[in-house]
């Protein structure tokens, strides 16, 4: 029956959740803090840090994410580092997304009025205290919209891991489609991505509301 078929396909595709969600959350957990560190290094007064992070961002934003995934999975073993495909995917994704987050955070930090630094400075706060207590909390509010964009893109980018043999939602759906000559599985996958995007949009809207208690 048609309904049975949809149900069975959905259950099969559900197994792909593990890969998709695993990669999605792991990427966020690693790339958000790493992105902040890269942003802080990029705006530090040390030339060497500026150059290193500038090059990092250029490389990671300048090449396809899929190529980076391939490089980590197929290329690193040649350098003596062999990773299983999930670990390789997480590493490549985290490094890639950190580069984008770094630029978003940097723009957010640099959009804060210089008077904020000056008033913290004359009150005796150190640079680290100023960043942690004054600048970064205000930056978070400003970067929510672009961060939300990246996070939604990430949900869909996870589908790239089919390239290294991981069975994520889309790859599982594709297997079913080729097996049964029926595109229902693709539609189920599309609904899955749309639902996730809806949830994320909702979460970010709530976050923006939470920060709306002040305006600058």
């Amino acid at each position: 029956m048609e309904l049975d078929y949809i149900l069975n396909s959905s259950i099969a595709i559900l197994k792909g959740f593990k890969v998709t969600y695993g990669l999605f959350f792991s990427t966020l957990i690693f790339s958000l803090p790493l992105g902040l560190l890269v942003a802080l290094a990029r705006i530090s007064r040390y030339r060497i840090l500026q150059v290193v992070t500038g090059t990092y961002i250029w490389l990671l934003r300048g090449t396809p994410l899929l190529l980076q995934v391939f490089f980590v999975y197929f290329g690193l073993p040649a350098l003596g580092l062999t990773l299983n495909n999930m670990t390789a995917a997480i590493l490549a994704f985290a490094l890639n997304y950190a580069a984008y987050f770094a630029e978003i955070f940097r723009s957010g930090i640099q959009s804060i009025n210089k008077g904020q630094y000056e008033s913290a400075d004359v009150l005796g706060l150190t640079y680290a205290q100023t960043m942690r207590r004054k600048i970064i909390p205000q930056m978070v509010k400003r970067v929510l919209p672009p961060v939300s964009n990246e996070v939604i893109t990430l949900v869909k980018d996870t589908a790239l891991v089919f390239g290294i043999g991981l069975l994520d939602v889309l790859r599982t759906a594709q297997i079913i489609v080729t097996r049964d000559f029926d595109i229902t599985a693709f539609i189920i996958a599309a609904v899955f991505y749309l639902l996730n995007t809806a949830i994320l949009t909702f979460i970010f809207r709530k976050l923006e509301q939470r920060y709306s208690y002040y305006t600058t």
Partner: protein
Amino acid sequence: MSILKAHNISKKFKNLEVLKGIDLEVNKGEVIAIIGPSGSGKSTLLRCLIRLETIDRGSIEIDGQPMVTEASDGHSVYASEQNIRVLRKKMGMVFQNFNLFPHKSVLENIIEAPIIVNGLSREEAEAIADQLLQKVGLAEKRHSYPCELSGGQQQRVAIARALAMNPDIMLFDEPTSALDPELTGEVLRVIKNLAEEHMTMLVVTHEMGFAKEVANRVIFMDNGVIIEEGTPEQIFDRTQHPRTKAFLGQILRS
């Protein structure tokens, strides 16, 4: 008794010389108004005194301690960062644009530095904050956020925030210039009250009436130098200097 002493300070931004050998001595309890046309270097002078800008030549002493000294070749040499921190704690500053922390409540704006810089307990800091809020007439705004306040109220909070660090000298950089005319009075009144308590203050201002009424000494700056200084009567009523006359004439006409 001198609490701040600047000698021969010069400051260049790229090729533009903004301060050209300024000498300034501030005595305890003095209220000094610094007036002059825009671009004359008044704000830069204030910012140099609290090291928001570094000077190129000259020396600055705070409470008898050198913050920056003049080397034999005339260039300025700053004290260690640690010593500078100690000296800067003696100074408080209020900005033209208030610069309150928008994501923090009025109370948090005031207590944060006393807690994390001076090591006060939260209770001690709050007690001081409440007393200061009372003083600036904003006790009921304790839990408001800066965006909920008028400009005049924000500036009064900024004054309370600076006072909470218990400074010996207060620097005001055009404290009413960003305010609507009807809001300047409440801020000037707070500053005037401080003057009556003998707080040492340096006030860069365009409010001539205020300078005349509150200052013990008026400094007129133009083009990076101090043209003239004296009592308010000497500057406002009896000046013989053509540039002071021209400036005051212009102000009074407008």
